[in-house]
């Protein structure tokens, strides 16, 4: 099983590398000017914007691997951003404390989802559809339609621990990926997580504490979505209730592209991160291809379907 997860991550890495190389070739200027795609600044840009999805996708991968789903990620990102914004800008809390509060609110929403799934036995789709509405609604209640301008309250050239602000999303995504990759691959909790997703009844009979595992994944998923929201608020400089609308679908897609199975029992944290980067490269490269203004979504959708179908065919053959 570990080998299968490693293969899944390696496969996503290969797709990403090939995708990048192909776009670098396709978008290479013919007139000798430097490439507008294959340069460090653009890679930094891809990383900066993909990391919001990537951080969320780490949580989504674990939830999906445990047999669940979370539709609330985008709403939690927004709620965490306005929580941090309100506490920092309006209430004057220190930034670190305001950010911690944003993380906590994400954990809280995750805990509510866990309660609904574990105790109330609601299907995860329904439970997180509900928390999605509650989180987004709470964000609007807090802001009353306004937004919080964090950038106006941060010192010029703000670079925590000497790291430029724009680099932090990528740094945090990398750190979160390492931590949770270790958890999923090398700990009993990780094995239990996938066992619950693979066959919950068998896992229960084998002595796995199913309720604890499910609580862990939803609370962690909520916290990671909260982290994405806090990062968005501080790096982009605004906490707003309508941020990240629809992001949950892209986050889930990144996790699935990265190897998570919607049937449960299979997930790759590294794959989820790479999946978010695969989308990030597409989002960055497609606008550079002339004449395709309205076709971006169509192309991304086709790419997702192709990869998913191939994966399904290969999985059936493997079985």
């Amino acid at each position, binding site marked *: 099983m570990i080998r299968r997860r490693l293969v899944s991550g390696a496969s996503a890495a290969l797709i990403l590398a090939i*995708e990048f190389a192909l776009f670098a070739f*396709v978008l290479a200027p013919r007139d000798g000017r430097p490439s507008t*795609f294959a340069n460090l600044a653009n890679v930094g840009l891809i990383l900066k*914007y993909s990391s919001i999805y990537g951080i969320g996708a780490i949580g989504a991968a674990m939830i999906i691997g445990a047999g669940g789903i979370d539709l609330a990620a985008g709403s939690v990102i927004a709620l965490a951003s306005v929580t941090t914004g309100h506490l920092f800008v309006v209430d004057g809390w220190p930034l670190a404390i305001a950010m911690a509060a944003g993380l906590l609110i994400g954990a809280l929403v995750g805990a509510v989802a866990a309660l609904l799934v574990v105790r109330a036995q609601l299907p995860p789709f329904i439970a997180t559809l509900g928390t999605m509405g509650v989180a987004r609604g709470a964000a609007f209640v807090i802001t009353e339609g306004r937004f919080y301008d964090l*950038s106006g309250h941060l010192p010029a050239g703000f670079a925590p621990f000497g790291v430029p602000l724009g680099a932090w999303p990528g740094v945090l995504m990398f750190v979160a990926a390492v931590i949770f990759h270790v958890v999923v691959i090398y700990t009993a909790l990780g094995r239990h997580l996938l066992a619950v997703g693979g066959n919950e009844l068998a896992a229960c009979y084998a002595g796995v504490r199913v309720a604890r595992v499910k609580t862990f994944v939803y609370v962690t998923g909520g916290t990671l979505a909260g982290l994405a929201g806090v990062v968005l608020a501080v790096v*982009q*400089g605004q906490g707003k209730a309508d941020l990240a609308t629809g992001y949950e679908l892209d986050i889930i897609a990144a996790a699935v592209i990265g190897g998570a199975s919607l049937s449960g029992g299979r997930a790759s944290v590294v794959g989820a991160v790479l999946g978010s980067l695969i989308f990030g490269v597409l989002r960055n490269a497609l606008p550079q291809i002339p004449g395709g*203004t309205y076709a971006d979504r169509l192309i991304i959708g086709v790419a997702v379907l192709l990869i998913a179908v191939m994966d399904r065919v290969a999985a059936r053959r493997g079985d």
Partner: protein
Amino acid sequence: MTFRRFVALGLLVAVLGCADRSPPPNRLRFAIIPKAIHIPVFEYARIAAERTAKELGVEVVWRGAETTDEIRQKEILESFISQRVDGIAISCLNGDLLTDAIDRAVDAGIPVITWDSDAPKSKRLAFYGVNDVEGGRALGDGLAKLLGGRGRVALITSLGADNLQKRLEGAQAALAQYPDITIVETFDVRDDAVRVAEVIASASQRYPDLDGWLSVGGWPVFVRNALDPVDTSRTKVVAFDTIPPAPDLLRAGKVQLLVGQKYFGWGEESVRLLKQIADGQHPTEVYHYSGIDVVTRENVEAYAEQWKRWEAGR
């Protein structure tokens, strides 16, 4: 499995790669970024921008988010900065959010102008569009006159964009001159023409004695049936924007006054301004106000004729 994924993705991208994307050498490349590509008014800006680009021998790249996603718009702006285009013209969903990116572009030598919706705290070199405060005032005064200076009115806006906020302030200031006019509620439709129909329908139930609707955006007149719940024998409607089908709604009596912008001018003037800047002629002033068109049933036919001339590029 891995090899097949590689082949599938490679085929997809290779097909995309067949597009000829080499601009002629030394051809200026300008990025024109609307708030979102699904908003109908911006289609006229695109038509005029591409037409003017052909005339001036430059290339324009029309790119925007599929929805009013402020982060996505900023991502697109930053992408054009890293592509080192020769100029950027952007209608800002959220000027404050875009300010640092606009400043970075200007500091990197890429001229940026704004159109329709400004980023007033940024280093943009120019803004082309209506004086939104004046436009809002025109709406407020127009509605007040239609109501004889008395009545209960509801406002429609979309929170976040600088231009809409200024129009709202202008409208509120104009209505404040009439002490017998009461604003019962201000609705935020989040730039969604579908949501506005729902808002109008439910508000018509809640406020059956409403005398007027004032919309600082064209959402109620972008579709033909959003105003159906409104009893036009009693309730007057004024709105921003005059793009089709708004003039038809005016003719049908569903709306009484429209304030129009220079939609084709957004595209045309943006390209011209960027070209002038590229030629070394920086604008001497920041604000290039286009003026507004106030359209009522009395002058709608003359306006329709003018629209045809704009469409034809005359």
